[in-house]
């Protein structure tokens, strides 16, 4: 049976060149970067080379990159760290309704601790309206956190415009760019953001490593305390093999960005056209302001998990905005935020493309999905053909 992995939004396979450098570090470069001896100096050198590669991918300076254990930690560090660092300035935070839980939940934890939290709504394509942000900013606002590309529906936010509005009011701006980095050009200076999170395993690097970009001079306190690594902002022996692999993945992402974006945009558009030809289906997210890799559609009358299971039985790996996916039972807060009913949000399918996908994969998916949808609809009490 054909095997088609179309869940690159969840995680990506490592690029072969990344596996090669990582295995080399695992095998030959085991020193602790804090050690003064030859093994340590070798490790330190590789650490800093990787930092430079990662910085380059987003147009930052190496000393503005702080390695973390992934996107979640980077998001938490940005939000909780800035809140703690600017406690004296104020206790108001602004975010959007469609953030990843790694942003929403720390914001909610701050709310419980007495912060004011403004959650900006989005339009029916999932975009924050700049005028809403302008109205929400206050004297005591310490941080705005709005994601670059949404993980479920792929919609891109007008970050440069939003960040400019925050900057005019002297407020730090964080963006969760876990889903945009490596897929579209991301430059911290063009975007004008002060903090930016990203994660290696979404760009063909390993799981367990990510980074937070912190613009020089931004006030932020660490989440954890210990050794002096990462200039005291993130203690603990550095994950050297992971970080070096991240560096390699960043180099490759930068090198291949345009070619892959073009190729994947074509595949994405073929998928969108093919799937929206099925009756009673809707495309979720913005038609054009979306990352090249994301397709998200809702099929009326059917439920996400059984859709995923059925596709899985055909060798197709996909995901869903549905309840069951993550063990939580609430329908996706993102799909509800763009105005879908619970029932329709329930029947959503996310296909996320990547390096390993081919035209052939798209053909296969476009052949199988209608069959599965038809079968499940025929079992649905909501459907009367």
């Amino acid at each position, binding site marked *: 049976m054909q095997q088609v992995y179309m869940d690159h939004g969840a995680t990506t396979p490592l690029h072969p060149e990344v596996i090669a450098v990582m295995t080399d570090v695992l095998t030959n470069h085991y020193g602790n970067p804090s050690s003064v001896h030859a093994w340590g100096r070798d490790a330190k050198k590789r650490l800093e080379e990787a930092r430079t590669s990662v910085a380059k991918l987003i147009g930052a300076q190496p000393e503005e990159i702080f390695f973390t254990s992934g996107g979640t930690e980077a998001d938490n560090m940005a939000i909780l760290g800035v809140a703690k660092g600017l406690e004296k300035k104020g206790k108001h935070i602004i975010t959007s309704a469609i953030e990843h839980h790694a942003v929403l939940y720390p914001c909610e934890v701050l709310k419980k601790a007495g912060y004011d939290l403004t959650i900006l709504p989005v339009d029916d394509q999932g975009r924050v309206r700049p005028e809403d942000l302008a109205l929400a900013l206050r004297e005591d606002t310490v941080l705005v956190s709005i994601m670059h590309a949404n993980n479920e529906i792929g919609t891109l936010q007008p970050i440069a415009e939003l960040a400019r509005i925050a900057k005019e009011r002297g407020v730090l701006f964080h963006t969760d760019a876990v889903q945009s980095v490596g897929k579209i050009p991301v430059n911290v200076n063009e975007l004008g953001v002060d903090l930016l999170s990203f994660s290696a395993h979404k760009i063909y690097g390993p799981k367990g490593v990510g980074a937070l970009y912190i613009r020089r001079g931004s006030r932020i306190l660490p989440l954890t305390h210990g050794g002096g690594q990462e200039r005291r902002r993130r203690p603990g022996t550095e994950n050297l093999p992971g970080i070096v692999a991240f560096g390699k993945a960043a180099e490759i992402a930068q090198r291949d960005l345009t070619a892959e974006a073009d190729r994947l945009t074509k595949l994405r558009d073929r998928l969108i056209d093919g799937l929206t030809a099925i009756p009673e289906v809707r495309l979720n997210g913005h038609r054009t302001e979306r990352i090249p890799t994301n397709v998200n559609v809702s099929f009326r009358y059917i*439920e996400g998990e*059984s859709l995923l299971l059925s596709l899985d039985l055909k060798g197709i790996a996909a995901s869903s905005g549905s*309840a069951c996916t993550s*063990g939580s039972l609430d329908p996706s807060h993102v799909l509800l935020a763009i105005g879908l009913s619970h029932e329709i949000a*329930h029947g959503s399918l996310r296909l996320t493309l990547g390096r390993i996908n081919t035209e052939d994969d798209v053909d296969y998916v476009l052949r199988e999905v209608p069959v599965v949808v038809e079968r499940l609809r025929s*079992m*649905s*009490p909501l459907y009367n053909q």
Partner: protein
Amino acid sequence: MYTEKVMDHFTNPRNVGQLENPSGVGEVGNPTCGDIMRIYIDVKDNVIQDIKFKTFGCGAAIATSSICTEMVIGKTIEEALELTNKDVASALGGLPANKMHCSNLAADALHEAIKDYKNKSEQG
């Protein structure tokens, strides 16, 4: 995550569909997740002669619907009423912890269908 038995009933569900002139129909929504199931029964001489279902729900919901219909076909109304969610789940070889609520759908819809049948026969 699912047992082979669950996957079997999910892939080849028994008794999917609807009955033309059912003795009773039951429909319930799962309060935990909003999924929906409808069961049609055909009762003669107090025995469930035929049964069909339609489910809008997760894999566990479809599998429990399927096995539940298989378990009660040919049973008396009284026997069918004794069927519990746990019976259904264990007939499937168990369900993941966060999927136990799904097994409620089938037994509840069945009980609703029997109630509907009783109402109708009392009226008729």
